[in-house]
């Protein structure tokens, strides 16, 4: 058993254990993965008869010239660029605070994690009600301070900001937990030593905690950015099944959904899916490359 080599017999036996996973994965992951790329170059495609009229780059050319697609790209990138740093900074702040206090830390942690388990659609509807022009919570609070009400959901200037708030709110919990994991790990090992060396709180943070926290921070930034690239449910709930005023909140995934499900332009939708994939894949590869580089620098210790 310890030195057993695989044989055809043992492979066959193992296959029984692997079969359910392999079957489902082959049919619903690997096959559609290939198909997703193939479909993006189909033109004149009839999905029901599976008849392909021609093959070419027309779908990508369509996207290249489609102002709506440009808008979707712009919105997605803007959302990621603003919401990601905000989420990461706030979660680091809160995690650091949770790490400092002793009482109620568990209680606070429980609260901060609640949005993670909450249905995006359901809470999106709650946010819709919070952002509402008349009677909404936010405008009532603004009213207290003497500001005039803002039509968050119908004014194209504010609609994307509203979406960002929802994304940040929901993204905090998981990141706080990840930062906490890192901080606990660092705390036990290094800051006690730094304290003995006479470093004050700020020096400890900048010289010990932060450099050790950096790899996790990069992981969290990437993870949050990827999550923000994939925003769909929030838009759907916040604007009751539309992409916001004048498509102000049209994200890449919402564009894909619209082309696919509403307009039935499957091949164009598939092409936008491929662009979406390239974006995500590119970011993932970059991160992977960074961590490989870093691992090599640190002599394999990571």
């Amino acid at each position, binding site marked *: *058993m*310890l*030195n057993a080599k695989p044989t055809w017999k043992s492979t066959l036996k193992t296959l029984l254990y692997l079969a359910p996973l392999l079957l489902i994965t082959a049919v619903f992951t690997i096959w559609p993965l290939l198909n997703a790329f193939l479909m993006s170059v189909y033109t004149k495609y009839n999905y029901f008869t599976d008849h392909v009229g021609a093959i070419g780059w027309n779908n990508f050319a369509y996207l290249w010239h489609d102002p709506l697609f440009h808008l979707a790209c712009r919105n997605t990138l803007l959302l990621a660029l603003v919401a990601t740093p905000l989420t990461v900074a706030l979660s680091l702040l809160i995690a650091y605070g949770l790490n400092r206090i002793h009482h109620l830390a568990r209680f606070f942690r429980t609260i901060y994690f609640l949005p993670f388990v909450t249905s995006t659609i359901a809470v999106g509807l709650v946010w819709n009600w919070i952002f509402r022009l008349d009677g909404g919570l936010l405008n009532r609070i603004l009213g207290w301070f003497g500001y005039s009400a803002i039509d968050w959901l119908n004014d194209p200037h504010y609609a994307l900001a509203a979406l960002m708030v929802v994304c940040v709110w929901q993204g905090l919990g998981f990141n706080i937990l990840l930062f906490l994991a890192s901080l606990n790990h660092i705390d036990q090992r290094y800051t006690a030593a730094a304290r003995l060396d006479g470093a004050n709180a700020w020096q400890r943070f900048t010289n010990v905690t932060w450099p050790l926290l950096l790899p996790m921070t990069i992981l969290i930034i990437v993870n949050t950015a990827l999550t923000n690239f994939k925003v769909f449910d929030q838009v759907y709930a916040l604007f009751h099944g539309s992409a916001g005023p004048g498509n102000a909140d049209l994200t890449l995934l919402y564009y894909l959904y619209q082309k696919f499900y509403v307009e039935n332009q499957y091949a164009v939708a598939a092409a936008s899916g491929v662009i979406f994939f390239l974006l995500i894949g590119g970011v993932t590869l970059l991160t992977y490359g960074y961590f490989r580089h870093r691992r090599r620098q640190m002599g394999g210790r990571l």
Partner: protein
Amino acid sequence: MQVTLRDIKLAYDHQPATLNHFSAQLPDGQLTALLGPSGSGKSTVLNLLAGLLTPDAGQIYFDQTEVTHLASRQRHIGMVFQDYALYPHLTVRDNIAFPLKMAHVRKAARYQRVAELAQLVQMTDQLAKFPRQLSGGQQQRVAIARALAKRPDLLLLDEPLSSLDTTLREDLREGIHRIQRATGVTTVLVTHDQDDALQIADQIMILADGRLQQVGTGTALYRHPHNLTVAQSIGRPQLNTCAVTALPTAWRQVLPLEYYQQATTVGIRSEALHLETPTDPHTVAGTISRQIQLGRDHQTTLHTATLRLVSTALPATLQTAVSIGLDPTGCLLFAADGRCIWAGDAHA
């Protein structure tokens, strides 16, 4: 059940063979100890018997049946692992009953047998506990009870005492001996500690460098070692050794000349070095550098002009300069290949 290993060869991936042409026989109903340093191949032999390793060549027989390629679970053996491998989510009772459950023994009969075994290993009052609530010694006893549950033909013990402190060790060593006697099961004990082997084994197999060096009782191994390795692994303090050329001339006289000339190494047991007696002309001057009391005995470190020796036959003394005599019955002569060509005791 008698166990036979015949001409076993085994090599791990990309490494020199761990075992080569290894043959051995374990007599029925006896406790055999496999003694050797780490890397000697003793755990490999145990894993071969357990069916956890399959040899590259050679055969293993349980009585007349060949089991070389038989799966572990069909070999009908019990094993106690070094870390005891108790199932953490099961109570002591269910741990002991697990092999019986796998054998589809009915629940009432299972618990009946658990009660017997608990009695045997003296754990009757701990049956409802979980492994993490037990001490190391208690865990070991549970592991033995579990290994014995299905009345195996062969019991394998893999360093069962290594993680326990000394007092507990003595206790549990006796426990293993008692249980083995009570059940009469053929037992193999793997250990790197000669005390374990000497105190409870019926026969001891000494392994080194993947080879079976010698098999025998503790007495036989001590008095008639086949080679230097065996002589060095049995006896505490360890055998004094020196090159024949370094041996003082006075002491050479007490050794037989014809063997002495063929030998390259001399082994001197610590009890063979004693204070000079009036009748003994062959003494060597030495100085005592250190003397320590080990319970009843004294262990003395001596220096002669050329040698550093340990003796247990010197009385407590405040002298530092002494005259030392050598008793030939405690001497061994080894050839260049390590073979023992003369053992004082045997030829005296």
